[in-house]
């Protein structure tokens, strides 16, 4: 089946496909549920067949045929090379420094790619109680680098976080080093409109590439702080027919398996 040349696609599909393209065949990836899981399995089913996918429930080298709804669906253990206990996962594999890329997302992000998934409002009297950090605080510091996937929006890309759930680049260039953290931290923030990367000097997130049909004003309109743009902005190519076909097949299988639309 060949997709038509000018096939339409959603912003979420674009975000997932751009995240998949960022992964390499020899990566060992700590996968999160949602867009990261779709991106990692898309990469595995296209250009990175040997990629190692690890879910924090303990499954190492898993090759799910459908995307899991939870971080510990049976599909993950059934298709994994091995399944270890949760203490082993966090101690030997994550803290042990064996993961090259960790995926994170969140309800809110600031210009240094610190994330909040804990509360909106005061911690003791929250306006909105979010799920909390889970694995994120240690994923953010132990993985070789971190890719963040998040849809943009003024309530999500904020000037000041009410709570720092996981560390990005702290308050700037010296923060991670000062905390004794040697890993790179967030190297890409892949959104539904553009890709941001930390500036090499200041560590502030900078728009490096725009998606087809997206202008600077549209990106700024969805961000709560005045954005920096790189001197040369790259144009990211639209999804290929093959990328869309593999992603949609995967999501159709997933929807059928979970008994309702995914």
């Amino acid at each position, binding site marked *: 089946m060949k997709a038509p040349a000018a096939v339409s696609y959603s912003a979420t599909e674009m975000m997932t496909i751009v995240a998949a393209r960022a992964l390499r065949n020899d990566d060992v990836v700590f996968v999160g549920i949602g867009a990261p899981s779709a991106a990692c399995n898309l990469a595995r089913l296209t250009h990175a067949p040997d990629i190692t996918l690890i879910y924090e429930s303990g499954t190492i080298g898993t090759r799910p045929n459908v995307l899991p709804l*939870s971080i510990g669906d*049976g599909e*993950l253990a059934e298709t994994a090379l091995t*399944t270890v206990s949760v203490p082993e996962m*966090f101690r030997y594999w994550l803290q042990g420094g064996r993961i090259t890329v960790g995926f994170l997302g969140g309800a809110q992000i600031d210009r240094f790619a610190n994330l909040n998934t804990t509360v909106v409002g005061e911690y003791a009297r929250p306006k909105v109680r979010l*799920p909390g950090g*889970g694995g994120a605080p240690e994923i953010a510091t132990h993985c070789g680098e971190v890719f963040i996937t998040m849809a943009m929006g003024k309530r999500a890309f904020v000037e000041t976080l009410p709570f720092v*759930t996981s*560390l990005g680049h702290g308050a700037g260039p010296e923060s991670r080093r000062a905390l004794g953290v040697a890993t790179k931290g967030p190297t890409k923030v892949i959104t539904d409109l553009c890709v941001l990367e930390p500036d090499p000097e200041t560590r502030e997130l900078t728009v490096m590439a725009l998606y087809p049909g997206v202008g600077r004003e549209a990106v700024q309109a969805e961000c709560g702080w005045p954005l920096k743009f790189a001197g040369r902005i790259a144009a990211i190519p639209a999804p290929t027919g093959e990328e869309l076909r593999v992603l949609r097949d995967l999501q159709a299988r997933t929807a059928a398996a979970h*008994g309702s639309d995914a």
Partner: protein
Amino acid sequence: MAEILTLKDAVGAHVSDGDSIAMEGFTHLIPFAAGHEVIRQGRRRLTLIRMTPDLIYDQLIGMGCAERLVFSWGGNPGVGSLHRLRDAVENSWPQPLALEEHSHAAMANAYEAGAANLPFAVFRGYRGVDLPHVNPAIRSVACPYTGEVLATVPALRPDVAIVHAQRADRAGNVLFEGIVGVQKEAVLAARRSIVTVEEVVDDFGPRSPNAVILPAWTVSAIAVVPGGAFPSYAHGYYKRANAFYKGWDAIARDRDRFRAWMDENVLRGRPEDFARYAGRAGSGRIPSPLVEEGQGGGNDEGRSARHLSSLSVSPPQGGRGGA
């Protein structure tokens, strides 16, 4: 030494008001039937400990059983919020709920420290984040060899651990397979333990020498509750009812609808009700029991229809900041 009891007797003997309880199972093997029995017996002022509170703690919290929650990720996996947990934290309904919040790494290390009879766990974590500012249990220690400052958390030593497993043998030894989470650590860290199992067998049969087994003398009570992990799952027996997790969102959003559902399915329920979700043991891939209910479609809704009479599986509202 493990006694094989009914679930009612096991919970009656080992769970009291004011206890700290760890019901573990990382997405897999979550002891739902046992949690429902704790609710039916009306236990109060519990400290609930669990890495991912999941629907079972949403139910216990919403029914007013808990005064404190120790946790590391409180969402409905892949769906969004736990609305009863949120209502307790944001609005103190049905009563206030104190939180002791950690990261997954901290909880996993704290269970391991409990199992190892250590006073605290040490790990490299919590760097540059706000949790240590709101949780006074998170502290640090300098490495005596390198001087590196490392995070510490107190060992978890629950009064009771409650877990679900695939099988016990007649002597009361317990076998776990698949995603084993922190169940072994939780049981060994706890003063008492209850294990619900899919079945009791004469012999575990062929197995890896490295199979995860808790010897009978490490467990207080075993109760046979086939299907007792539904709507989570038991590897080799039945699959996770993902449609139930999606459908729970609408039930738990509304206090009255939640109470009505709990009344019909839990307060007036029995442990035997879970048997309809149970699959069969065996080697290799077990067909999902969800297929065998006679609905023909083989989807989760068909399977869930009876037990969940008031559960209409409608697409949930996408929660921002979910899993």
